[in-house]
């Protein structure tokens, strides 16, 4: 039961981090600028971790993740703004509808491989965006006003649940099946693994949490519009995963945290922002071509418990 102990230790650390930040926020030590950054950080971590399951674990190169985020963001906005239902209902609805979108897109496209899959998912994400752009019910190109209901508590616990679910999924027979598909699809198939099923499952779970992230995101920003979910957003998420190291959950968390901080600080220098951002990426790729952590997890470095558990 060593692993289980490690698990609770990580959860305890996470709760302490949460409590400290919550206390600093309510006492005014962290201003609205930084609390906004922290919440966006949680959103980005969720997006990175959910895409990590699809690309890093299952090895399916999907670059349409912002599409699922858009579905979640708009669905949750409809639930809270048009139906006046509580935020928590909106979060769950956002996840479920994004999951359906994931199934809808995953079942036909996951027969494709590599570059073809990437292009197909990118195309589907654009289709989602353009559909939203042309639906007047959600404001079309003008966007939609959303009341701010996201708090640090919502953002943090949504992120924590995302990480726990995906880490637990990965360390089970189902997760191993997914990694086997990444390593060698033909061999996985020959070993009795239903590869199509596991690819679709990974896609659906990833889409679910991207939808949840979208809900947290839209209720933080006051205002959402289709352009926020274009392919540049998809690439941002992809960069977190690749920069963190394909196959490393803690790597994608770390990359999402670092890049959120970098881009927040660089927001003050809009002219040079993209240049510096790109330079950071080029430097990391030159010196750490396998990403920040490679395929390792942060916990591997501590040897906390035998194989490590969750990382927060």
């Amino acid at each position: 039961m060593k692993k289980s102990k490690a698990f609770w230790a990580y959860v305890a650390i996470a709760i302490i981090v949460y409590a400290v930040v919550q206390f600093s926020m309510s006492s005014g030590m962290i201003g609205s600028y930084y609390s906004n950054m922290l919440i966006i950080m949680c959103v980005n971590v969720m997006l990175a971790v959910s895409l990590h399951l699809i690309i890093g674990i299952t090895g399916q190169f999907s670059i349409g993740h912002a599409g699922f985020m858009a579905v979640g963001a708009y669905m949750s906005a409809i639930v809270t703004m048009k139906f006046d239902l509580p935020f928590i209902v909106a979060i769950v609805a956002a996840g479920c509808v994004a999951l359906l979108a994931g199934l809808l897109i995953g079942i036909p496209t996951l027969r494709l491989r590599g570059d073809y899959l990437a292009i197909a998912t990118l195309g589907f994400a654009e289709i989602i965006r353009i559909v939203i752009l042309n639906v007047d019910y959600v404001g079309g190109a003008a966007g939609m006003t959303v009341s701010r209901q996201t708090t640090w508590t919502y953002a943090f616990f949504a992120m924590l649940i995302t990480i726990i679910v995906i880490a637990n999924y990965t360390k089970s027979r189902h997760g191993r099946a997914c990694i086997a598909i990444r390593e060698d699809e033909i061999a996985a198939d020959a070993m009795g693994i239903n590869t199509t099923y596991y690819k679709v499952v990974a896609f659906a779970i990833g889409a679910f949490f991207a939808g949840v992230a979208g809900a947290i995101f839209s209720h933080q920003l006051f205002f959402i519009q289709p352009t926020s979910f274009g392919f540049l957003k998809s690439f941002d998420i992809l960069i977190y995963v690749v920069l963190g190291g394909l196959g490393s959950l803690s790597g994608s968390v770390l990359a999402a945290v670092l890049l959120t901080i970098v881009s927040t600080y660089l927001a003050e220098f809009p002219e040079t922002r993209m240049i510096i951002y790109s330079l950071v990426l080029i430097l990391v790729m030159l010196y750490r071509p396998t990403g920040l952590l490679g395929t390792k997890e942060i916990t591997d470095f501590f040897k906390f418990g035998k194989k490590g558990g969750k990382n927060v």
Partner: protein
Amino acid sequence: MTNLLLNVAHLGIQFGGLKAVQNVDIQLYDGELIGLIGPNGAGKTTTFNMLTGVYAPTEGTITFQGKTLNGLDPYKVTQSGISRTFQNIRLFKELTVLENVEVANHSLATHGIFASILRLPSFFTGEKKMEQQSLAFLKIFGLDVYKDELAKNLPYGMQRRLEIARALAANPKLLLLDEPAAGMNPQETHELMELIAFIRKEFNLTILLIEHDMSLVMGICERIYVLDHGQLIANGTPEEIRQNPKVIEAYLGEEVVD
């Protein structure tokens, strides 16, 4: 105890205009150890790929334990009891040795996705069962000392053994070995022969193997099928095959008559 396990009748496949394999008939009875040989490009691996569902045959039928396998997905073929190794090793390189075997053990446990995410008791019992079973397989192959090593870090001979262990973990009735001794030295080949004989007895297996190493094939196979240019040219005991003029011709070429 001569139950017909696998019956392959008039099996053939066509890629575009090329008939890669045609009119292949193979009968395997319970508990047999059969060799499939032939020069390079004769269609041996293609035949394996048809038997395991990687390619769908364009003609003929494959019947396994009375069930037709034509057109089934590879994972369903495996679940119905045929498991294989690959000519060029296809291990899950970034997984540990133990995890490689556990992947093949997939259907042993039944805990679902939600049980895994919520860490329900069925998750712990299921994973434990898989681990113990997999360790037992590793022990037979003398790989248990490497269990936490990544598969890609194993020496070549050990990787070959791990592939067989993994194929066995999928709980097959019929094991297909695609050149298990490729790249091994005589000592390793000899050990492998003993190992194959051992697992066959231990697990009550029927084995069909492709091999170029004639000492291995002639040494352990009871019957041998010979393929050349996509067609069966001979079938019989090692002694018969050794003296079959067609086989000699396929391997050495025709005698020059002047």
